[in-house]
Structures are given as C-alpha cells and as structure tokens.
C-alpha cells in the first residue's frame, strides 16, 4: 500500500516528464503533410527563364525529382541555397524550383546573384499551386518518385544532415526501383 502511494504519483510524473522531454525536441512548425504517399498535385506553370514555355508535373514522369519551393523574399532560402547549388553540381537528382509568390524579375535577379541550382523553375505568382501542394512556409522540399508520387517532404531549409541522411538515400533508393 505504501509502495502504491509513492509509486502512482511517481509513475504519473515520469510519464509527464517523458512527454515534455520528447516535446522539447519536436518542432511544432513541422506539420506532417497528408500528401506524402499521394500523387503530386498536377500543375501547368510558366517557366521562369522562358515565360512562354509551360511546364507540367507530367513532364517529369519516369524520373525521380525534387520540388523545392523558394522565393527571393525568403530569408531562410539563402541558408539552404549553397547546398542546393552543390547538389546540382553533383547532378544527383533534377531539382525543380517553385518560385512561390514572387516577382519574375526579383526571382531571376536572385538566381543570378546566388547561383541557379534548378533544372528549371516554374512561376507560382499567386501561390495557388502552393496551396495544392500544401505549402505553408518557404522553403519546402518534396521528393517525387518515378510514378509521380510524393515520397517525402522536408519543411524549412534543407540541412546537410537531412540531405545526407534522409533525402539522398531516399532518392538513390527510388532511382533504383
């Protein structure tokens, strides 16, 4: 009886501490996307470099590709940008840029200044396609497989760690399948 008297509150306390401890290391801004495992939402948008040309999701069928949401006004995009440039140099996987709620001229100037890692960038000026992809903060990066299904979503700037440990291994696995 004595043991229970101490044991029960102690157990409740331990559970509470456990929950809070895990909570410390979780980012509430990272909302899991319901789109992972679903076909990538279709778009048909203008190419940033060649405004006359339309680019559609279906153009990438048969290859693994990344969709990286970026904007010239986005500060944390600058953090991940050198990594993307490096990734593009390694030619590991095509990166498609979604220039989100940006002005074309600003976007082009930004790419000229910081380097352009994108196979191509598409223009989502009013953010309509962003909504379809469940974008709520820039930058965001999606991994899309050969069949056009979203396999992974990274929220916030891509880190070297995320790239090496999660994104690139997944890309390699998907490319082999």
């Amino acid at each position, binding site marked *: 009886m004595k043991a229970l008297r101490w044991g029960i509150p102690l157990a409740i306390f331990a559970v509470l501490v456990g929950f809070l401890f895990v909570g410390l290391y979780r980012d509430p801004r990272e909302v899991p996307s319901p789109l992972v495992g679903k076909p990538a939402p279709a778009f048909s948008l203008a190419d940033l470099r060649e405004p006359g040309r339309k680019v559609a999701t279906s153009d990438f069928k048969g290859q693994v590709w990344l969709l990286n949401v970026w904007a010239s006004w986005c500060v944390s995009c600058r953090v991940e940008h050198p990594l993307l440039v490096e990734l593009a140099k390694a030619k590991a996987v095509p990166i498609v840029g979604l220039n989100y709620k940006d002005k074309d001229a600003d976007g082009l100037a930004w790419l000229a200044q910081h380097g352009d890692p994108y196979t191509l960038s598409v223009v989502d000026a009013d953010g309509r396609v962003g*909504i379809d992809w469940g974008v709520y903060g820039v930058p965001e990066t999606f991994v899309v497989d050969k069949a056009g299904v979203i396999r992974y979503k990274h929220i916030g700037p891509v880190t070297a760690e995320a790239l090496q440990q999660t994104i690139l291994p997944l890309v390699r696995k998907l490319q082999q399948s």
Partner: protein
Amino acid sequence: MRTLARLALALAFAFAAGASLAQQPAPDLEFEGRLKRLEADLRCLVCQNQTLADSNAPLAEDLRREVRALALSGKSDAEIRTFLVARYGDFVLYDPPVKESTWLLWFGPFLLLGGGVAVWLAIVRRRRGAGVSAGADEPAVAPDASERARKMLDETSSG
C-alpha cells in the same frame, strides 16, 4: 455662421459617403456570416494559434480567398474542409476528427478523470475502513470512562 457652414460641410460629406456606399452591391450578410464561421474553425498554419479568420499572414489571406472562391462555386462547408484537410492535414481543423491517432486527445481527459475518481474512491474507502477498525480493535473511549460520565451526568441532573 461658422457653425452653420461646418454643419453644411459635414452633411455634404455624409451624403457623399452615403452615395458611394449605396453604389456598392449590398453584401450578402448570410454568406459573409457563413464564411466567418467557417474560417473561425480553421487554423492558420503560419500563426499556429490563430484562426484563419483572425490571421493577417499572407497564406491566411490566400486561403481565405480560396475558401471564398470555393464557397462561391457552390461547395458545402464539409467539402471546403475536405479540400483543406487534403492539403494541410487535420492540423487545419480546430475540431479534429475522432480517429485512431486522436484517441488519446479525445479520450485522454476522461482517462485522467477516471484515474482521479479511482484515487478519490480509494482514499474514501481507506478512511472509512480506518474508522471502523478503530472502533472494533481499540475503542476510542474506555468503557469505564463512559460509565463514569453517565454517573456524573445523572448526579448533575438530579442534584
């Protein structure tokens, strides 16, 4: 005279304002109310503790525009919610659905309540048990003491 001029000016402004208001189509109050209620139930993903109706974030503006467009195209509230949940997950709902992953959220409080009731019952039972055992094993008042007390009471009432 000056007051009169001011009054005239004020009236003129009032008229002008009234006229420009009258030219706009009357807002559909029922429709606006429905949108407000719907948006008050949806969470803004940027300012996570604000509703879509309250948030000034650019994404909230876009989503409000989207919700309005969907409502205008004849979609029901449930269809609009489904549209947003398909893109942003249950997180956009302030009223999350009951399913396996939200069981703890919905039933956790009742679990805690049940635990509290169990503890309370245990305490009550132990106290009652303690009282009974005290009466049986070691009488609170010695038998000769109560005998003496009765005698003393008899004496005072008779004397």
